[in-house]
């Protein structure tokens, strides 16, 4: 095995980047990419599983639901005041509030998850994160393999620029 290193290829077109990713992965490189938009062909080429962020968001929404129920029922029972002859625990109006709280807490959890996901992604793919964010080109970083092989694959796939990176 040759020198371990990381090779960066910059692509102008998502099609080329996708080709490179597929080829690199076939050659058992570890691939990181950075791109200005989530180009579906690149994402597909990466073949990663779907994000597990949904579970976090879903539990956030559940928490919101619980909080909503506790808030509405709890505060009404804590000091029961009759209004309009309606029961102390009036389900239909409480459902509305519970729904809103569910959406609110769910959304905020989702926000927290996406921010955390961004931090996590930047940490895991430090090289691509550091070098790739140019806004107008797609960066593909190959590592854990033969650097020159990677460079070749990248060039063949149509990279405008290929260089070794630390």
């Amino acid at each position, binding site marked *: 095995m040759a020198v371990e290193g990381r090779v960066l290829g910059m692509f102008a077109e998502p099609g080329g980047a996708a080709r490179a990713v597929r080829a690199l992965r076939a050659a058992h490189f570890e691939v990181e990419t950075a791109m200005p938009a989530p180009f579906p062909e690149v994402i597909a080429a990466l073949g990663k599983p779907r994000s597990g962020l949904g579970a976090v968001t879903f539990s956030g929404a559940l928490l919101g639901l619980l909080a909503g129920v506790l808030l509405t029922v709890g505060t009404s029972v804590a000091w029961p*005041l*009759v*209004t*309009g*002859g*309606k*029961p102390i625990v*009036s389900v239909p*109006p409480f459902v509305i509030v519970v729904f809103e709280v569910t959406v609110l807490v769910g959304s905020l959890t989702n926000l927290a998850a996406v921010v955390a996901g961004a931090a996590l992604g930047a940490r895991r793919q430090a090289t691509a994160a550091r070098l790739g964010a140019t806004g107008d080109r797609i960066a593909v970083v190959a590592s854990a393999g033969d650097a020159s092989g990677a460079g070749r694959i990248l060039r063949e796939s149509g990279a405008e620029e290929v260089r070794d990176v630390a």
Partner: protein
Amino acid sequence: MSDPSQRPVGRRTFLQVAGAAGAASVAAGCSPRAAVQKLVPWIVPPDDVVPGQPLFYRTLCRECAAGCGVTARTREGRAVKLEGNPEDPIGRGALCARGQAALQALYHPERFKGPLRRGAGGALAPTSWDEAEDALAQALAAAQAKGPGRIRLLTRLEPGATGAVQRAFMKAVGARPEDRVVLEPLDPAPLRRASEALFGRAELPVLDLSAARSIVSFGADLVETWLSPVELARQLAAARGRLGAERARLTWVGPRLALTGVSADRWIRCRSGGELAVALGILRALVEPARGVPVPEELRAVVPRLQRLAPEELAARAGVPSGELERLARELARRRPSALLGPGAQAQGPEATQLAAVVLLANVALGNVGRTLRYGLDAREDVPSSAADLRALLGAMSAGEVDVLLVQHADPVGTLPTALHAADALAKVPLVASFALRPDATTARAHLVLPDHHTLESFGDAVARDGVVNLAQPVMTPLADTRQAMQVLLELGGKLPVPASFPSTDPYDVVLARAAEHATRATGAPPADVAPVHREALQRGGYWWDPEPRPPVRLRPGAAEPFLALPPPPAADGALDLVVFPTALRGDGRGADLPWLRDVPDALSSVSWSPWLEVSPATAARLGVGTGDLVSIETAAGRAEVPAYVFAGIRDDAVALPLGAEVLSVLPASAGAAFYWAARATVARAGRRTRLPLLEGSPYQHARELVPVVTAAAPSPRRPDLSARMYREPDHPEHRWAMVIDLDRCTGCQACVVACTAENNVPVMGADAAREGRYMGWIRVERYLGDEPGGELDVRLLLMLCQHCTNAPCEPVCPVYATYHTPEGLNAQIYNRCVGTRYCSNNCPYKVRTFNWRDARFERPLDLQLNPDVTVRSRGVMEKCTFCIQRIRYAENLARDEGRHVADGEIQPACAQTCPAQAITFGDAKDPASRVSRLARDGRAFRALEAVNAGPAITYLARVRPEAEP
């Protein structure tokens, strides 16, 4: 009962107490204000005052001539509320709107703070009592020396100690009896004169309408202003409370609907002045031999004379279909006893006397005299002077024959027709001394102002009639450096060149001296020591006894004839008849500057703060005016501009104007104290518009059946089926406070409205607020004139206040629980929690919530009247009727202290308490035996907007419409 002269609470300490108790409370935020507050103790605590606890005094109402007894509730030494005296035989615990508002005369911000003397510069300047009295005494001495007639006294009716002292004083200064002139604008003089002419006794009758089966009022507005409105409203309610055939029929005769007309079952819409023709027509029909009515012996002589009158001509003169008179006569013949009443309080002059006489003759014909109209009870303690006497006084003044004029609670400039030129006459008098409480048109021209105590600060008595003497006593120390007029007269007597031999200058002694006689008549024997007897009487409120019968009145032979001719018809000049009327709120105009009375909308026109001219829709169309357009009214005497109010309750050939300054400028000089109806005026559009402060939106029910009536054929209103329920009804473990309002008894007199305002610190926001639709009253009279515009006139009243609903729509929409349903069934409003979303009001089907659009101002010393048990609301919060929660809690506390349950009827909200007709009943709906529960099961029961299913706690009992008689 405390004698204020010995009560140690000085004015100073009173104010300190008031300050310490933190009288006015304001709902604001929740943090206690950082400002340092001082607590100032009493020097010596008064024995009977417990701070925070009410103390009640019995006294007297002097707002009109009826003389009702009053219970004044005081807190920390200040009067906060007036109520009727339940033991008083006249009011029986009720009080009218004007009586309720007497408190505001006490606390009026403009009240004189002390004696004033007109200085060289022409302005009134403060002086001392000694100086003022000395100056007056000197003038009196000088005038006395010139002979009789140089000193005159102009007073309101004073049927008691004050009147007696006035007479004694005038005698002491050498005046003749006629030098004391009694000015009572709403004096029913024609009744007295008719009785004098027919029976030889110038007396007013005492009425017992409760026995009558038919009542006909010829313009006598007996629920508003006539004779003794509180008593008559109660009697009328009793007479109509007997349902079925025994229920009394009330007929209103007049060109315009007054409140009595609203209560009436039938309105004979005669033309202005046509009442006489109606009365003659009825009298004529009654003595018709075919009628079957036994014509009394004494009337037989006039039958031929009467038969010479042509019924058709009478009907034509009255402006009514002739069949109507015939029908009324038939009814009267069948329904006996009856009572024929009239003319109204505003009617004066020979025509009015003739009408009174014809009405009296009809009463004689029907055998009512001695049954429903009782003569021989008029105590004649004081009698108003005639218009001629008044004119004589003004003439003497103008001629410079009067040197000193004492004016006691009479305002000749402000209450007499401008055409009488009272102001000019006054200007010719070198010394005018007024005892007025607050500035009026006469004090503006007076040289000395010797401010009297308010009745609530004075001792006195009033002989309402034989057997009824109500007593006045101070319920609080005087607010300002005032002196009771009676005392001033007594002191002046001592300063005369030949001092009068008055035993004491203390009004209390005068009343006590008179009390010996009252006590003797009340107990049948002269008391050994009158003082303790009198103390008891003060606690009770008066001396009341059954008077020994006097010989019955008999028609004098030949006395009737002069009244039986129809006077010549008035010239038909194309002008409109001008009807002048007093209202329940304004009375004779004396209290017209009291904020409560001005702010409460008139029950019929719903106008507040402004005069108005009632114009029928047809006439309005003809004149090209609408409600709010200014119209000019012109008579021979003068001209006035008043906004028009288009009102279906008036004939097309008449316009009507409430008593007030505008009336005075159009009254002819011949009108005397007030006015007879047959005046004519030219009415025209003035071309300008005003925004009339009007409560009414639409006066029609728009086919909504809001206020049903019941008849013999349909004895119960239609009610929706509300048995289906979405939720379980809330629990009311102990009580469910509820109210029943009997619309058959309600007359629309507005006493409840003013009582509520007084009890609950309801702010008066002024004319502009009223124009903007921001009247703050918690209870209002909704008056519907019919179903649709242009339809049949069908006046129905609906007393509208918070319904304290079980499923109150206002409650669940409040985001902060500022309003909720209490376990006792009240719809509570927590002012300090309210943020002012106003959704509750939007969602209230009854629109009984009022919002504080701006901070209320209680100008000093009106703030002393504020009820300390009720929070004063700040701007931005919603408020509404609480069923007088403070009274409920007071009674509950009392019951708890005494270890018992609250008794039925023990709790009375201010509105129910004061209702003269006892139309409002309050109590516990959970107790099936309570009065309110029993009444709510009545067949006439319905609830307002019942189909909304808000579950109101207020049940209305529908008005009864009698079936038409053949």
